[in-house]
């Protein structure tokens, strides 16, 4: 068994003041609420606001997902909702696409039009809780338009809506469903981000290390990749879109994957706070303190949820949730015990939410900010993971930054090598997983958990509905707005497409249609799967 951090640093049996002799409290830690924010952003921590306790929702039709959201509310989902889109919508193609229809509503919400968003939000207020919609980059600019359009329809002041509906352009490198080329994703990300910043909308954009880690990256790599992405994207908004860094700093939020190596995960989050604060001040010359505070949410690691003996996952999830709470974060969405089997069953969802409630209400962990601050081991780990992360980040910068590193294949190779190494560690027994490579029991002796599934008929129903509904739209208005979007998409990259996307969304254009004509304008095939043609006459 390896006694090393997940990035390969040896761990001693005991840590003493000697291991942190160079630590300077004011310079390296600060009180919670003071630069460099290693200990957190709020002097009172969770006493002023407890972390948002939420669960991922999204399976089947929009109506079904709407019911699940209401159910989660009853189960104590506090402060925010979180919905992930289905596989078709992530590309995006429409649910009635010949290939898309087989997976409509699978693994997420089929959010292909404003109608779907209206159904999703039926009886659910746009304000009073954070609204988070996840899933791929190009689609996220359309989700932003849904929020703008629905707020307008409901007479809700857009500045009162908060949450996050947009995502970073690199996710298709990290095992996500996203069929769009990097340059298109980047352009749409810049458009949606600029729109948010200029219109002072309190919506964040997810720039996540979670995908990278869940695909096999280690902690030091995750921090390096996260910082490199943040740096590059913020720089583009400042340099290319002419925005002020102190305004841009309100945009990003990070979702960190938290695994079972308890102290290392806590150290990772503390180091991240410090790394962002230093970059904001030193690289971007931030003038406001708030600009030095990166919003960090936690997702407990789905990757660690085993297929074998799924009840064990309750223990894993509890350990990970506790780590996230102790590290300090703005929200936790935890994975479920049946993660390796299917979409969360109601039992699994309730178990995960209850785990959060138990940590928040029964352990006392929420009463003290950064309770492990000052631990010789945790401070050592925080310094060490930051140091190792800087080495990797420097390599990325030497290659020209995140985008250049991607183009040169460096990021992808680093991730694949790490994933293979993690697998080998399990094969060799260097890393033990109860029920998997030790203490294995025959499947017949295992506890049978309830499984929630989507049937093929459910997907077909969603597809058929969309097909029929499409014909009932105001076709002249649709044609007009789609044509305008197409013409605008032919202009230079600097031309922000959000206004024309919003008009098309209000005319009930679908995701496949909108991204399709944007693709066409850029000389790409309307359909990323090259199966259907553009249904609009755009000449």
């Amino acid at each position: 068994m390896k006694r090393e951090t997940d990035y390969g640093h040896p761990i001693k049996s005991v840590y003493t003041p000697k291991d942190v002799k160079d630590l300077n409290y004011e310079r390296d830690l600060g009180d919670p609420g003071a630069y460099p924010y290693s200990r957190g952003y709020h002097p009172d921590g969770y006493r002023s606001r407890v972390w948002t306790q939420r669960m991922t929702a999204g399976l089947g039709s929009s109506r079904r997902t709407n019911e699940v959201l209401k159910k989660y509310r009853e189960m104590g989902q506090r402060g925010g909702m979180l919905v992930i889109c289905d596989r078709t919508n992530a590309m995006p193609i429409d649910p009635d696409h010949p290939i898309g229809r087989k997976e409509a509503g699978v693994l997420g919400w089929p959010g292909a039009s404003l109608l779907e968003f209206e159904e999703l939000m039926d009886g659910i207020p746009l304000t009073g809780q954070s609204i988070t919609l996840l899933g791929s980059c190009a689609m996220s600019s359309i989700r932003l338009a849904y929020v703008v359009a629905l707020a307008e329809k409901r007479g809700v002041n857009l500045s009162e809506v908060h949450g996050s509906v947009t995502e970073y352009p690199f996710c298709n490198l990290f095992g996500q469903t996203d069929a769009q080329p990097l340059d298109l994703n980047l352009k749409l990300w810049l458009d949606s981000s600029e729109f948010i910043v200029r219109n002072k909308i309190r919506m964040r954009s997810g720039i996540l290390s979670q995908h990278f880690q869940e695909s096999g990256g280690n902690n030091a790599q995750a921090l390096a990749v996260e910082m490199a992405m943040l740096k590059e994207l913020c720089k583009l908004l400042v340099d290319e879109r002419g925005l002020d860094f102190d305004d841009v700093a309100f945009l990003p939020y990070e979702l960190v994957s938290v695994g079972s190596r308890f102290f290392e995960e806590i150290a990772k989050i503390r180091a991240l706070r410090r790394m962002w604060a230093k970059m904001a001040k030193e690289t971007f010359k931030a003038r406001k303190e708030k600009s030095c505070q990166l919003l960090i949410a936690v997702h407990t690691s789905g990757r660690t949820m085993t297929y074998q003996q799924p009840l064990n996952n309750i223990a894993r999830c509890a350990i990970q949730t506790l780590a996230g709470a102790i590290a300090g974060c703005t929200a936790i969405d935890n994975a479920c015990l049946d993660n390796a089997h299917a979409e969360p069953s109601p039992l699994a969802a309730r178990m995960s939410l209850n785990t959060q409630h138990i940590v928040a209400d029964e352990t006392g962990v929420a009463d003290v900010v950064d309770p492990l601050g000052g631990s010789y081991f945790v401070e050592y780990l925080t310094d060490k993971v930051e140091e190792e992360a800087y080495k990797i980040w420097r390599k990325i910068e030497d290659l020209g930054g995140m985008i250049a590193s991607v183009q040169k294949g460096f990021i992808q190779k680093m991730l694949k090598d790490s994933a293979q190494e993690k697998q080998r560690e399990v094969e060799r027994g260097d890393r033990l997983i109860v029920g998997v490579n030790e203490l294995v029991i025959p499947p017949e002796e295992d506890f049978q958990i309830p499984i929630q599934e989507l049937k093929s008929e459910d997907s077909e129903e969603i597809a058929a509905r969309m097909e029929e509904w499409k014909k009932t739209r105001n076709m002249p208005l649709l044609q007009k707005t789609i044509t305008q979007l197409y013409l605008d998409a032919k202009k230079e990259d600097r031309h922000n497409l959000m206004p024309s996307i919003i008009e098309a969304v209000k005319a009930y254009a679908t995701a496949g249609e909108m991204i399709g004509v944007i693709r066409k304008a850029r000389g790409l095939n309307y359909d990323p799967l090259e199966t259907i043609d553009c249904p609009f006459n755009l000449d």
Partner: protein
Amino acid sequence: MGKSQAIKVLISVIGLDGHSTGAEIVCRILMDAGMEVVYLGIYQTPEMIVRAAIQEDVDVIGISSHASNYGQIDELLELLKRNNMEDVCVICGGTIPRHQMQELKKKGISEVFPPQSTPESIVHFIVSNVKRAGNSVSGSCSCS
């Protein structure tokens, strides 16, 4: 073992999901065991997979699945039948619940490997169930 003797395996993710890590790890496991591996990647339809299997003349098709409906695997099996390729061994892996494993095996999938299946179990299954003589696919999949 000469190249013409190596068992040839096609690995593909099926459907729209982009989680390819598991499939890539299985590719490495099989190559380490001396097999020839053709990896198709993501966004593969049943038609594309069967076409490649014919072109590459494979002994085994290994499918990585993440969807919670299995219609596309049904389609794949149907296409293999129509192309007289029922002697090609088809195995699956991914986040597939146990009762679905039973269903898939009834439909003609030779074996289903849940997450964290050991490399030995996957390799052993393929080696014991696939026979290759010379260059031609004589693969008799003695399973079911």
